[in-house]
Protein backbone atom coordinates (compact mmCIF):
# COMPACT_ATOMS: atom_id res chain seq x y z
CA UNK A 1 0.00 0.00 0.00
CA UNK A 2 1.36 3.45 -0.90
CA UNK A 3 2.55 5.34 2.21
CA UNK A 4 0.34 8.17 3.42
CA UNK A 5 3.23 10.55 4.05
CA UNK A 6 3.17 12.88 1.09
CA UNK A 7 3.91 16.46 1.97
CA UNK A 8 1.31 18.03 -0.28
CA UNK A 9 -1.92 16.06 -0.16
CA UNK A 10 -3.03 13.58 2.47
CA UNK A 11 -5.19 10.58 1.72
CA UNK A 12 -8.09 12.48 3.31
CA UNK A 13 -7.51 15.37 0.87
CA UNK A 14 -7.51 12.97 -2.04
CA UNK A 15 -10.70 11.29 -0.84
CA UNK A 16 -12.36 14.69 -0.37
CA UNK A 17 -11.33 15.56 -3.94
CA UNK A 18 -12.71 12.27 -5.26
CA UNK A 19 -16.01 12.76 -3.42
CA UNK A 20 -16.39 16.32 -4.74
CA UNK A 21 -16.20 17.91 -1.30
CA UNK A 22 -13.57 20.53 -2.09
CA UNK A 23 -14.28 24.07 -3.22
CA UNK A 24 -13.32 24.86 -6.81
CA UNK A 25 -9.92 26.38 -6.01
CA UNK A 26 -8.89 23.48 -3.77
CA UNK A 27 -10.12 20.90 -6.27
CA UNK A 28 -8.17 22.67 -9.04
CA UNK A 29 -5.07 22.61 -6.86
CA UNK A 30 -5.36 18.87 -6.19
CA UNK A 31 -6.01 18.25 -9.88
CA UNK A 32 -2.88 20.24 -10.87
CA UNK A 33 -0.87 18.25 -8.35
CA UNK A 34 -2.16 14.92 -9.64
CA UNK A 35 -0.90 15.82 -13.11
CA UNK A 36 2.63 16.04 -11.68
CA UNK A 37 2.72 13.60 -8.79
CA UNK A 38 2.39 9.92 -9.60
CA UNK A 39 2.71 8.95 -5.93
CA UNK A 40 -0.51 10.83 -5.11
CA UNK A 41 -2.09 9.40 -8.25
CA UNK A 42 -1.23 5.90 -7.02
CA UNK A 43 -2.79 6.62 -3.63
CA UNK A 44 -5.97 7.93 -5.23
CA UNK A 45 -6.14 4.83 -7.43
CA UNK A 46 -5.79 2.69 -4.30
CA UNK A 47 -8.66 4.58 -2.68
CA UNK A 48 -10.84 4.06 -5.75
CA UNK A 49 -10.01 0.35 -5.75
CA UNK A 50 -10.66 0.12 -2.02
CA UNK A 51 -14.05 1.78 -2.52
CA UNK A 52 -14.89 -0.68 -5.28
CA UNK A 53 -13.87 -3.61 -3.10
CA UNK A 54 -15.98 -2.37 -0.17
CA UNK A 55 -18.97 -1.96 -2.51
CA UNK A 56 -18.45 -5.44 -3.91
CA UNK A 57 -18.02 -6.95 -0.45
CA UNK A 58 -21.27 -5.38 0.73
CA UNK A 59 -23.21 -6.74 -2.24
CA UNK A 60 -21.68 -10.19 -1.79
CA UNK A 61 -22.84 -10.12 1.82
CA UNK A 62 -19.32 -10.64 3.13
CA UNK A 63 -19.82 -8.44 6.16
CA UNK A 64 -22.66 -6.95 8.15
CA UNK A 65 -23.09 -3.29 8.95
CA UNK A 66 -25.49 -0.69 10.27
CA UNK A 67 -26.75 1.78 7.68
CA UNK A 68 -29.59 4.30 7.36
CA UNK A 69 -33.08 3.93 5.86
CA UNK A 70 -32.15 6.38 3.09
CA UNK A 71 -29.14 4.23 2.22
CA UNK A 72 -31.40 1.21 1.80
CA UNK A 73 -33.62 3.27 -0.51
CA UNK A 74 -30.55 4.15 -2.61
CA UNK A 75 -29.63 0.47 -2.80
CA UNK A 76 -33.14 -0.40 -3.87
CA UNK A 77 -33.22 2.38 -6.47
CA UNK A 78 -29.93 1.05 -7.86
CA UNK A 79 -31.60 -2.31 -8.52
CA UNK A 80 -30.26 -4.23 -5.52
CA UNK A 81 -32.78 -6.94 -4.59
CA UNK A 82 -33.54 -6.57 -0.91
CA UNK A 83 -35.55 -8.69 1.50
CA UNK A 84 -36.66 -6.48 4.38
CA UNK A 85 -37.96 -7.20 7.86
CA UNK A 86 -39.52 -4.54 10.07
CA UNK A 87 -39.67 -5.28 13.79
CA UNK A 88 -41.11 -3.39 16.73
CA UNK A 89 -39.48 -3.71 20.17
CA UNK A 90 -40.26 -7.18 21.58
CA UNK A 91 -41.12 -8.43 18.11
CA UNK A 92 -40.05 -11.60 16.37
CA UNK A 93 -40.11 -12.72 12.77
CA UNK A 94 -39.65 -15.91 10.75
CA UNK A 95 -37.00 -15.02 8.25
CA UNK A 96 -34.96 -16.46 5.40
CA UNK A 97 -32.85 -15.46 2.43
CA UNK A 98 -33.84 -16.50 -1.07
CA UNK A 99 -31.31 -17.30 -3.81
CA UNK A 100 -32.40 -14.21 -5.74
CA UNK A 101 -31.96 -11.85 -2.77
CA UNK A 102 -28.86 -9.67 -2.86
CA UNK A 103 -29.24 -8.37 0.67
CA UNK A 104 -31.40 -8.76 3.76
CA UNK A 105 -32.16 -5.66 5.79
CA UNK A 106 -33.59 -5.54 9.30
CA UNK A 107 -35.39 -2.40 10.43
CA UNK A 108 -35.36 -2.36 14.23
CA UNK A 109 -37.89 0.21 15.43
CA UNK A 110 -37.10 1.98 18.69
CA UNK A 111 -37.63 5.23 20.57
CA UNK A 112 -34.21 6.71 19.93
CA UNK A 113 -35.11 10.42 20.06
CA UNK A 114 -33.10 11.47 23.11
CA UNK A 115 -30.42 8.80 22.96
CA UNK A 116 -26.76 9.72 22.46
CA UNK A 117 -25.23 6.29 22.10
CA UNK A 118 -26.72 2.96 21.04
CA UNK A 119 -24.99 -0.41 21.32
CA UNK A 120 -26.22 -3.39 19.32
CA UNK A 121 -25.96 -6.70 21.15
CA UNK A 122 -26.37 -9.88 19.11
CA UNK A 123 -26.93 -13.27 20.74
CA UNK A 124 -26.20 -16.02 18.25
CA UNK A 125 -28.37 -19.11 18.56
CA UNK A 126 -29.68 -20.64 21.78
CA UNK A 127 -27.00 -20.16 24.39
CA UNK A 128 -24.48 -19.22 21.72
CA UNK A 129 -21.95 -16.40 21.67
CA UNK A 130 -22.77 -12.77 22.30
CA UNK A 131 -21.30 -9.92 20.31
CA UNK A 132 -21.64 -6.25 21.22
CA UNK A 133 -21.14 -3.45 18.67
CA UNK A 134 -20.63 -0.19 20.51
CA UNK A 135 -21.75 3.23 19.39
CA UNK A 136 -23.50 2.24 16.20
CA UNK A 137 -24.65 4.70 13.56
CA UNK A 138 -28.25 5.87 13.79
CA UNK A 139 -30.33 8.94 13.10
CA UNK A 140 -32.67 9.85 15.95
CA UNK A 141 -35.15 11.26 13.43
CA UNK A 142 -35.78 7.93 11.76
CA UNK A 143 -36.95 6.03 14.84
CA UNK A 144 -35.06 2.90 13.87
CA UNK A 145 -31.74 1.16 13.57
CA UNK A 146 -31.17 -0.32 10.13
CA UNK A 147 -28.98 -3.39 10.02
CA UNK A 148 -27.61 -5.38 7.10
CA UNK A 149 -26.50 -8.84 8.27
CA UNK A 150 -23.79 -10.71 6.34
CA UNK A 151 -25.91 -12.51 3.75
CA UNK A 152 -23.11 -14.91 2.84
CA UNK A 153 -23.26 -16.20 6.42
CA UNK A 154 -27.09 -16.29 6.47
CA UNK A 155 -27.06 -18.53 3.40
CA UNK A 156 -25.08 -21.15 5.31
CA UNK A 157 -27.52 -21.29 8.24
CA UNK A 158 -30.22 -23.88 8.69
CA UNK A 159 -32.72 -23.37 11.50
CA UNK A 160 -31.31 -20.73 13.78
CA UNK A 161 -32.50 -18.17 16.29
CA UNK A 162 -30.80 -14.85 16.74
CA UNK A 163 -31.67 -12.19 19.28
CA UNK A 164 -30.71 -8.57 18.87
CA UNK A 165 -30.90 -5.98 21.59
CA UNK A 166 -30.55 -2.24 21.26
CA UNK A 167 -29.09 -0.64 24.38
CA UNK A 168 -29.18 3.11 25.07
CA UNK A 169 -25.92 3.96 26.77
CA UNK A 170 -24.86 7.02 28.74
CA UNK A 171 -21.90 7.69 31.01
CA UNK A 172 -23.14 5.76 34.01
CA UNK A 173 -25.88 3.41 32.88
CA UNK A 174 -27.65 1.69 30.07
CA UNK A 175 -31.23 0.72 29.32
CA UNK A 176 -32.91 -1.64 26.91
CA UNK A 177 -34.53 0.08 23.93
CA UNK A 178 -35.80 -3.11 22.34
CA UNK A 179 -35.24 -6.79 21.82
CA UNK A 180 -35.85 -8.44 18.46
CA UNK A 181 -35.91 -12.13 17.62
CA UNK A 182 -35.11 -13.58 14.21
CA UNK A 183 -36.18 -17.18 13.64
CA UNK A 184 -34.16 -18.10 10.62
CA UNK A 185 -34.72 -21.06 8.36
CA UNK A 186 -33.14 -21.93 5.06
CA UNK A 187 -35.10 -20.90 1.98
CA UNK A 188 -38.06 -23.06 1.03
CA UNK A 189 -39.41 -22.22 -2.45
CA UNK A 190 -42.83 -23.68 -1.47
CA UNK A 191 -43.09 -20.88 1.07
Amino acid at each position, binding site marked *: *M*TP*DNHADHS*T*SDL*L*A*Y*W*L*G*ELDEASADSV*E*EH*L*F*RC*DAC*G*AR*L*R*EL*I*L*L*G*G*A*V*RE*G*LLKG*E*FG*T*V*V*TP*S*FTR*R*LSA*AGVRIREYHLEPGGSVNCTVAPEDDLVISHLRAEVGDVRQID*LVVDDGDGGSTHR*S*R*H*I*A*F*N*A*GTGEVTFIPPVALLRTLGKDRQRMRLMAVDKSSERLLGEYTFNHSSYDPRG
Partner: protein
Amino acid sequence: MDLGLSIETRGFYAPRVQEIPPDIDAELARRIAAGDPEAEAPFCRRFAPRIRLFGLKRLRNDAAAADLVQDVLIVALQKLRAGAVREPERIASFMLGMARQMMLDSKRNSGRRERILNEFPIDLIPVEEPAAEEPDEARLQHCLQALPERERSVLVMTFYDDCPADALGTQLGLSTGNVRVIRHRGLQHLRDCLENAEVRDDS
Protein backbone atom coordinates in the same frame (compact mmCIF):
# COMPACT_ATOMS: atom_id res chain seq x y z
CA MET B 1 25.62 14.85 -7.23
CA ASP B 2 27.02 18.37 -6.81
CA LEU B 3 24.23 20.45 -5.34
CA GLY B 4 26.20 23.62 -5.82
CA LEU B 5 26.43 24.39 -2.11
CA SER B 6 29.60 25.84 -0.61
CA ILE B 7 31.22 23.92 2.24
CA GLU B 8 30.23 26.66 4.71
CA THR B 9 26.54 26.14 4.08
CA ARG B 10 26.56 22.37 4.57
CA GLY B 11 26.39 22.52 8.36
CA PHE B 12 23.46 22.26 10.74
CA TYR B 13 22.03 25.62 9.76
CA ALA B 14 22.28 25.08 6.04
CA PRO B 15 18.98 25.22 4.21
CA ARG B 16 17.51 21.82 3.43
CA VAL B 17 18.13 20.96 -0.14
CA GLN B 18 16.19 18.14 -1.70
CA GLU B 19 17.40 16.36 -4.74
CA ILE B 20 15.07 17.42 -7.46
CA PRO B 21 14.50 14.72 -10.04
CA PRO B 22 15.00 15.79 -13.62
CA ASP B 23 11.78 16.94 -15.22
CA ILE B 24 11.19 13.87 -17.31
CA ASP B 25 7.87 15.14 -18.63
CA ALA B 26 9.41 18.34 -19.99
CA GLU B 27 12.37 16.46 -21.44
CA LEU B 28 10.08 14.06 -23.28
CA ALA B 29 7.99 16.97 -24.57
CA ARG B 30 11.13 18.68 -25.90
CA ARG B 31 12.28 15.50 -27.59
CA ILE B 32 8.91 14.99 -29.32
CA ALA B 33 8.97 18.62 -30.47
CA ALA B 34 12.48 17.99 -31.87
CA GLY B 35 11.13 15.09 -33.92
CA ASP B 36 12.21 12.14 -31.78
CA PRO B 37 9.49 9.47 -32.18
CA GLU B 38 11.09 7.33 -29.45
CA ALA B 39 9.91 9.84 -26.86
CA GLU B 40 6.22 9.43 -27.69
CA ALA B 41 5.57 6.07 -26.04
CA PRO B 42 7.11 7.00 -22.66
CA PHE B 43 5.32 10.35 -22.82
CA CYS B 44 1.98 8.55 -23.29
CA ARG B 45 2.81 6.05 -20.53
CA ARG B 46 3.42 8.88 -18.07
CA PHE B 47 0.37 10.96 -18.88
CA ALA B 48 -2.26 8.31 -19.64
CA PRO B 49 -2.85 7.31 -15.98
CA ARG B 50 -3.07 10.96 -14.93
CA ILE B 51 -5.61 11.80 -17.64
CA ARG B 52 -7.54 8.65 -16.80
CA LEU B 53 -7.82 9.60 -13.12
CA PHE B 54 -9.00 13.05 -14.12
CA GLY B 55 -11.53 11.47 -16.48
CA LEU B 56 -12.77 9.02 -13.84
CA LYS B 57 -13.24 11.84 -11.36
CA ARG B 58 -15.13 14.07 -13.79
CA LEU B 59 -17.01 11.49 -15.84
CA ARG B 60 -17.41 8.60 -13.35
CA ASN B 61 -17.25 6.17 -16.25
CA ASP B 62 -14.42 3.85 -17.25
CA ALA B 63 -15.09 3.82 -20.97
CA ALA B 64 -15.54 7.58 -21.19
CA ALA B 65 -12.33 8.12 -19.21
CA ALA B 66 -10.47 5.77 -21.57
CA ASP B 67 -11.80 7.73 -24.56
CA LEU B 68 -10.67 10.96 -22.96
CA VAL B 69 -7.15 9.54 -22.51
CA GLN B 70 -6.93 8.69 -26.21
CA ASP B 71 -8.36 12.04 -27.32
CA VAL B 72 -6.04 14.12 -25.18
CA LEU B 73 -2.93 12.13 -26.10
CA ILE B 74 -3.72 12.29 -29.81
CA VAL B 75 -4.08 16.07 -29.79
CA ALA B 76 -1.12 16.54 -27.44
CA LEU B 77 1.20 14.53 -29.70
CA GLN B 78 -0.05 16.40 -32.71
CA LYS B 79 0.61 19.78 -31.04
CA LEU B 80 4.01 18.71 -29.75
CA ARG B 81 5.07 17.43 -33.16
CA ALA B 82 3.94 20.70 -34.71
CA GLY B 83 5.96 22.69 -32.17
CA ALA B 84 2.79 24.30 -30.88
CA VAL B 85 3.63 23.83 -27.18
CA ARG B 86 5.54 26.95 -26.19
CA GLU B 87 6.61 26.00 -22.67
CA PRO B 88 7.57 22.33 -22.47
CA GLU B 89 8.59 22.85 -18.84
CA ARG B 90 4.90 23.47 -18.11
CA ILE B 91 3.72 20.42 -20.03
CA ALA B 92 1.74 19.02 -17.04
CA SER B 93 -0.37 22.19 -16.83
CA PHE B 94 -0.77 22.15 -20.59
CA MET B 95 -2.03 18.55 -20.50
CA LEU B 96 -4.45 19.27 -17.66
CA GLY B 97 -5.78 22.34 -19.46
CA MET B 98 -6.30 20.29 -22.58
CA ALA B 99 -8.03 17.49 -20.65
CA ARG B 100 -10.41 20.03 -19.10
CA GLN B 101 -11.11 21.66 -22.46
CA MET B 102 -11.63 18.37 -24.29
CA MET B 103 -13.98 17.12 -21.64
CA LEU B 104 -16.11 20.24 -22.12
CA ASP B 105 -15.86 19.87 -25.89
CA SER B 106 -16.89 16.22 -25.77
CA LYS B 107 -20.03 17.22 -23.92
CA ARG B 108 -20.83 19.74 -26.63
CA ASN B 109 -19.92 17.58 -29.58
CA SER B 110 -19.85 13.83 -29.29
CA GLY B 111 -18.62 13.43 -32.90
CA ARG B 112 -15.36 15.24 -32.18
CA ARG B 113 -13.42 12.08 -31.34
CA GLU B 114 -14.15 10.39 -34.64
CA ARG B 115 -13.25 13.56 -36.52
CA ILE B 116 -9.91 13.90 -34.71
CA LEU B 117 -9.05 10.27 -35.40
CA ASN B 118 -9.90 10.72 -39.07
CA GLU B 119 -7.92 13.93 -39.45
CA PHE B 120 -4.84 12.95 -37.43
CA PRO B 121 -4.25 9.23 -37.68
CA ILE B 122 -1.74 8.58 -34.90
CA ASP B 123 -0.82 5.07 -33.99
CA LEU B 124 -1.15 5.22 -30.23
CA ILE B 125 0.59 2.54 -28.27
CA PRO B 126 -1.82 0.85 -25.85
CA VAL B 127 -1.13 2.29 -22.44
CA GLU B 128 -1.06 0.10 -19.38
CA GLU B 129 -2.17 1.45 -16.03
CA PRO B 130 0.44 1.38 -13.28
CA ALA B 131 -0.24 -1.66 -11.14
CA ALA B 132 -2.47 -0.44 -8.32
CA GLU B 133 -2.85 -2.82 -5.46
CA GLU B 134 -6.31 -4.31 -5.21
CA PRO B 135 -7.05 -5.38 -1.65
CA ASP B 136 -7.33 -9.10 -1.04
CA GLU B 137 -11.01 -10.00 -0.59
CA ALA B 138 -10.62 -12.13 2.55
CA ARG B 139 -8.23 -9.65 4.12
CA LEU B 140 -10.54 -6.73 3.42
CA GLN B 141 -13.47 -8.64 4.90
CA HIS B 142 -11.45 -9.33 8.04
CA CYS B 143 -10.32 -5.71 8.33
CA LEU B 144 -13.82 -4.31 7.77
CA GLN B 145 -15.21 -6.61 10.44
CA ALA B 146 -12.49 -5.49 12.82
CA LEU B 147 -13.48 -1.82 12.50
CA PRO B 148 -15.57 -0.09 15.14
CA GLU B 149 -19.19 -0.34 13.92
CA ARG B 150 -19.68 3.40 13.33
CA GLU B 151 -16.49 3.67 11.27
CA ARG B 152 -17.55 0.69 9.18
CA SER B 153 -20.99 2.23 8.59
CA VAL B 154 -19.53 5.56 7.50
CA LEU B 155 -16.96 3.95 5.19
CA VAL B 156 -19.49 1.62 3.60
CA MET B 157 -22.02 4.37 3.00
CA THR B 158 -19.28 6.69 1.72
CA PHE B 159 -17.78 4.20 -0.68
CA TYR B 160 -20.96 2.52 -1.88
CA ASP B 161 -21.95 5.44 -4.07
CA ASP B 162 -19.23 8.01 -3.38
CA CYS B 163 -21.38 9.85 -0.87
CA PRO B 164 -19.83 13.15 0.34
CA ALA B 165 -19.62 13.95 4.04
CA ASP B 166 -22.35 16.61 4.09
CA ALA B 167 -24.94 14.28 2.54
CA LEU B 168 -23.96 11.45 4.85
CA GLY B 169 -24.08 13.80 7.84
CA THR B 170 -27.67 14.68 6.97
CA GLN B 171 -28.58 10.98 6.85
CA LEU B 172 -26.90 10.23 10.16
CA GLY B 173 -27.85 13.39 12.03
CA LEU B 174 -24.17 14.28 12.37
CA SER B 175 -22.20 17.36 11.35
CA THR B 176 -20.12 17.25 8.19
CA GLY B 177 -16.99 17.66 10.31
CA ASN B 178 -17.98 14.76 12.53
CA VAL B 179 -18.50 12.48 9.54
CA ARG B 180 -15.07 13.50 8.18
CA VAL B 181 -13.43 12.67 11.51
CA ILE B 182 -15.11 9.24 11.69
CA ARG B 183 -14.26 8.61 8.03
CA HIS B 184 -10.65 9.63 8.52
CA ARG B 185 -10.26 7.35 11.53
CA GLY B 186 -11.99 4.48 9.76
CA LEU B 187 -9.82 4.83 6.70
CA GLN B 188 -6.71 4.99 8.85
CA HIS B 189 -7.73 1.88 10.80
CA LEU B 190 -8.61 0.04 7.60
CA ARG B 191 -5.31 0.94 5.90
CA ASP B 192 -3.34 0.01 9.03
CA CYS B 193 -5.09 -3.35 9.20
CA LEU B 194 -4.51 -4.03 5.49
CA GLU B 195 -0.84 -3.00 5.76
CA ASN B 196 -0.27 -5.14 8.85
CA ALA B 197 -1.81 -8.08 7.07
CA GLU B 198 0.60 -7.44 4.17
CA VAL B 199 3.54 -7.46 6.57
CA ARG B 200 2.33 -10.73 8.12
CA ASP B 201 1.92 -12.27 4.67
CA ASP B 202 5.42 -11.19 3.64
CA SER B 203 7.14 -12.47 6.76
